[in-house]
C-alpha cells in the first residue's frame, strides 16, 4: 500500500519529493490526509510543531494553489514498516488560527499540540485538553510568535521588592 497520485488529487495535496518528502495540504483536507497516511503505514507521529512566518525574509516555496499564510503547522510522521519519514505542512491563517486536532488518529499528538497552542496560539479543534503546557496557565501571549519580543517581560521573583 502506498500513497497513490489519485489519493493526493482527491485531497488537493501536493507531494514534493526530495531527500525528505514533504506533503502540502489545504487546511480543510488535513485530517483526511492524516488518516490516509495512517492507513498507508505511517503509524508513528514523530513530531508536531509550527512555524510563524511573519518576518520570514526568504522566498517561500509553496505549490501554486496553496496560499502562504502566517502560520504553518508541520507534522513529521514515521513508518516503522516502510522505514520512511514524511512531513506534512499546513498553512494556518492568522485571523482564524485554528486547525483540526489529529488526536483521534495519533493520540501521541497530545503534548505536541498543547505545546503549539501554548507557544503560537493555534487552536486545535477536537483536542481533549487544550491548555497551556509549558507556560503558566494565566500567561498572556504566545512566546514563539515572531511579534513577541525576547525581553518583553521583566524578570522579578516572588516577594522580592521589585525593580527599584
Amino acid at each position: 500500500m502506498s500513497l497513490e497520485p489519485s489519493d493526493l488529487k482527491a485531497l488537493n495535496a501536493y507531494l514534493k519529493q526530495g531527500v525528505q518528502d514533504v506533503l502540502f495540504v489545504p487546511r480543510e483536507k488535513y485530517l483526511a490526509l492524516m488518516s490516509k497516511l495512517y492507513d498507508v503505514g505511517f503509524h508513528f507521529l514523530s513530531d508536531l510543531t509550527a512555524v510563524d512566518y511573519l518576518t520570514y525574509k526568504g522566498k517561500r516555496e509553496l505549490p501554486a494553489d496553496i496560499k502562504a499564510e502566517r502560520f504553518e503547522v508541520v507534522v513529521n510522521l514515521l513508518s516503522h514498516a516502510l522505514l520512511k519519514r514524511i512531513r506534512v505542512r499546513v498553512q494556518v491563517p492568522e485571523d482564524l488560527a485554528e486547525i483540526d486536532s489529529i488526536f483521534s488518529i495519533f493520540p501521541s499528538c497530545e503534548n505536541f499540540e498543547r505545546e503549539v497552542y501554548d507557544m503560537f496560539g493555534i487552536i486545535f479543534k477536537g483536542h481533549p485538553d487544550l491548555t497551556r503546557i509549558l507556560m503558566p496557565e494565566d500567561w498572556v501571549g504566545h512566546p514563539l510568535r515572531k511579534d513577541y519580543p525576547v525581553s518583553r517581560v521583566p524578570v522579578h521573583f516572588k516577594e522580592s521588592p521589585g525593580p527599584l
Partner: protein
Amino acid sequence: MSKVEKDHRQSVLRLSETQANALDIDETIIGPGETMIVNMGPQHPSTHGVLRVMLELEGEKILRSKPVIGYLHTGMEKTGEELTFVQGATNVTRMDYLSPLNNELVYCLAVETLLGVELPPRAIWIRMLMSELNRISSHLMWLATNGMDVGSTTMMIFGFRERELILAFFEKTTGLRMNHNYIRPGGVAADLPDGWEDDVEVICDTIPVRLEEYDEFITGQPIFRERLTGVGTLAAETAIELGVTGPLLRATGVPWDLRRTMPYLAYDQVEFDVVVGTVGDAFDRYAVRINEIRESVKIIRQILEKMPKGDYRVQDPKITPPPRARIDESMEALIHHFKIFTEGFRVPEGECYVAIESPRGELGCYMVSDGSAKPYRMHIRAPSFANLQSLPAMLRDHFVADAVAIISSLDPVMGEVDR
C-alpha cells in the same frame, strides 16, 4: 475509538490548575467511592528534577494521573532564534544535560543538512565515539538514580563512580565535563587529545567488568527484581500510539533503533545488536539499558580500531574557523576568524528534520532557515517530552510506591522536557 486511545483517555487526569483550585473539598472526610487527588512533586527527590504528577488515588491505588511540566521552561527554542548557527550548539547542549553531545549532534546535523556540506571521515567517527561514550554515561547515570529510587543507595555511588571515568575523558577532550559545545557545525571543535586511545581503552576495559559486578549485586537480587518486575507494563501497540521511543519502546519488544534502522553518521559500518525486551515492564527497561551499555562498549572498541586519520572538521573558511597558527600569518585567516565569531555564516533557505537515537529515544531537530546567519525556527523534538505521555498509562492501577519506580524507569530529563 481504538482501544489504546480509550485506555489513554481513561488513564489521563484532565484537570487544569484553575479547575483544581476551584474544587470544593472537605479534606477531613473521604466517603466511600470518593477519590483523592495528590500532587507528587515538583519538589520530590525521585521526580528527576521538577516533574510534577497529579495522582488520583483510591486508597493506595492510582486511578488517573497527569504529568504537569513547564517548571524548567527557559524558552530555549526562542533563544535559539536569537543566536547564530555558530552559537546555537552552546544553547542546545543545555537541553538534555545528561547527553549534551547528542543534542549538539542533532543540531549540527540539521545545520549541515541545510548547508549541504560533507564531513571528513574522522569528524564523523569522532562524533560517533563521543555520542556512544555519552550514551554510556547517560545510562550509568540512569542506573544510579534508578537504584536510588528503588532503595539501593550503593548503586547510586557505583553509577556515579563509573560515569566519572567518562566525564574525565570528556573534560580532557572538550575542556568541560558537561555542556561541551564540542560538536559544531562543520565538524568538532578540536581533535582528540594525544593518547586518547589509552583512555578509551581503560574505559572499555573497566565498564564491562563493573557491569558484571552490577549483575551480581543488583540484577539478580530478589528485592530489586520484585520491585521492578511487572511494574509499569506497556504494550508495544500502546507505546507506538503514545509516541514512545528509545529504551522504553525497545523494552516492549519493538526492535526500533535509529542507529540501525535509519543509520546516520557511520553506524552502518559498525556491528552491534539492538537490545529488546519482552514484556515492557520496568525490569525490561533496566535490562535494555544495562545491555545497551555493553553494545556501546562494543561499538567503541570498533571505533578504536577503525578511527580514520585526517581532518576533524571541514576546511571551509566560511564555516569553520581557520587553525590558530594561520591567524598569525594570514590576513584572510584573521578576517574569516573574525567574521565567523561576529556574524557567523549564512545558511541557504530551506527546512529539514533530522533525527538521531539519543539515550532516551528519538531526538529530532526541525530547522527553518531564511538565508540569514540565524535559524528562523529551531525546534527540538525531545524524546522525554513524548515519552512522558505514556506515564498515565503506566501508572494506572499501580500503588503510589510503584510510581517512584515507574517515573524512574521512564528516565525523564526535565531540561529536555521543558526546554
